[in-house]
């Protein structure tokens, strides 16, 4: 295994663009990542494309007009963790020496998908889906447990959204560039109590891409490289083994594996991007990532430590709640945002002197398993 670096990042606009094709969004992100890396299309040796909705050979279609064809291309799906899975697979190819340089991207056109305007549900054949389960329901049930076991209140959940929108308002790439108040969030219509509309991520169209290569090649290219300290992907365990609803076993397992691989601990992390599709879940991830002790998530949030300017900013991009959530793009986008932080390019949202950052993404909801997949990347400024 050899050291791997990220040398280019790129994202498309995030928002509702029902008139833009997925390949147009994807190409915008990949073109930006190639330009950022200073790499031409013919240098790319392998490509991973992630997408859920809805047809075939996404990578081939997205890369076609960029002048990338004929190389090995792999299309992946892993619910909301699809993009992170593409990044992880590219890392494996380069770390193991199969290839020296490649691109991983995720793209989703949610407004043209069959899920547009609906609550994301598991497979229609799933027993829980038939009985009314969907993503906001899952997180609402977690939220109610957090209220019972952690002393969390609706104001705490609202505060997660307020924090996300404060960051998003400073991010020119965000879908919602406006702040909201706790009162705004609580007054928004209820989706699945205690979750309100402003505690749900929006339908978003968008794409994100990274160019990755061996650290040796990055140095020869003179690129602005960020080193990959850990790349982890874990799938969910059985639901019958799950303890309380307020923790994801797969999330904890991925975190332990990532810290182990990096030779680091949660105390070494300067900035975090994570899956905040629904506001209450951010509290679960604080504990699963070890940002605080089990049971202390509410205290960590209330302390302001995870806000912009805090000890350990979480989602300084605005997160899925404000930046938006094009499902398969988000797991690449979180990596892009951590690279931006480690380069010192995050402007008003910059974490001072960020050296180590963590990008987490998870997804999936199906009966019998506690979720779908969890991925973590830990990156280091060189």
């Amino acid at each position, binding site marked *: 295994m050899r050291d791997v670096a990220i040398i280019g990042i790129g994202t498309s606009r995030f928002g509702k663009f029902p008139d833009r094709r997925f390949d147009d969004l994807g190409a915008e992100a990949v073109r930006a990542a190639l330009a950022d890396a200073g790499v031409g299309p013919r240098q790319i040796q392998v490509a991973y494309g992630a997408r859920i909705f809805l047809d075939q050979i996404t990578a081939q279609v997205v890369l076609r007009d960029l002048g990338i064809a004929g190389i090995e291309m792999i299309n992946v799906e892993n619910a909301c963790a699809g993009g992170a899975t593409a990044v992880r697979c590219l890392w494996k190819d380069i770390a193991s020496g199969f290839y020296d340089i490649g691109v991983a991207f995720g793209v989703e056109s949610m407004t043209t998908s069959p899920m547009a305007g609906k*609550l994301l*549900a598991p497979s*229609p054949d799933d*027993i*829980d*889906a*038939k*009985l*009314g*389960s*969907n993503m*906001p*329901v899952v997180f*609402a*049930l*977690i*939220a*109610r*447990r957090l209220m*019972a076991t952690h002393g969390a209140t609706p104001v705490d959940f609202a505060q997660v959204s307020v924090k996300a929108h404060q960051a998003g308002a400073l991010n020119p790439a965000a879908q919602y560039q406006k702040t909201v108040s706790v009162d705004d969030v609580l007054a928004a*219509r*209820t*989706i*699945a*109590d*205690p*979750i309100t509309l402003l505690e749900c991520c929006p339908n978003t169209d968008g794409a994100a891409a990274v160019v990755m290569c061996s650290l040796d090649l990055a140095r020869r290219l003179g690129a602005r490289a960020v080193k990959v300290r850990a790349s982890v992907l874990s799938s969910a365990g*059985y*639901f*019958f*083994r*799950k303890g309380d*609803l307020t923790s994801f076993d797969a999330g904890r397992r991925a975190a332990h594996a990532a810290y182990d691989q990096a030779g680091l601990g949660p105390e070494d992390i300067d900035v975090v991007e994570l899956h905040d599709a629904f506001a209450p879940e951010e509290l679960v991830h604080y504990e699963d990532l070890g940002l605080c002790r089990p049971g202390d998530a509410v205290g960590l949030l209330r302390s302001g430590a995870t806000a912009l300017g805090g000890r350990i900013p979480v989602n300084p991009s605005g997160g899925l709640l404000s930046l938006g959530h094009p499902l398969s793009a988000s797991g690449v986008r979180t990596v892009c945002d951590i690279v931006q932080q480690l380069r010192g390019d995050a402007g008003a949202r910059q974490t001072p002197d960020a050296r180590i950052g963590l990008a987490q993404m998870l997804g999936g909801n199906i*009966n*019998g398993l506690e979720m779908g997949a969890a991925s973590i990347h830990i990156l280091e400024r060189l």
Partner: protein
Amino acid sequence: MGEIIAPDFHAGVMVGAGPDLRLIGARCPSCGQTFFPAPMRCLACGSATLGPLTFDRSAVLESFTTVQMPATSFAPPYTVGYVRLSEGPRVFAPILVDGQMLTIGMPVTLMEIAIGRGETDRRRAYGFRPLPPAQT
């Protein structure tokens, strides 16, 4: 309650009808792990054979939410939650509320319900409702 004449919403998870409705799953004769629904083999110890298990009707409410957006078979508002069956499994299910205040930890009992989008799409399913206060 009127008789529900409709196909089951999901095969192999219920037996009986009306007040005799029960959920059916499996128990591993080797390690004792209980499952709902029944898997093909024991997911805990790997044993290839599982014994059938008919669950008691009683359960405890672990969490609940009332949903204000439509789902495939439900018009809003509808309430769902996780209940813990007496024999162990945690089950996602509709929760039937009739004016009661739901609380985590309250006892609930199985009941037969109909789900679907109308007369032409009606299936028999299970739900849970709070137990009435104990009679003195």
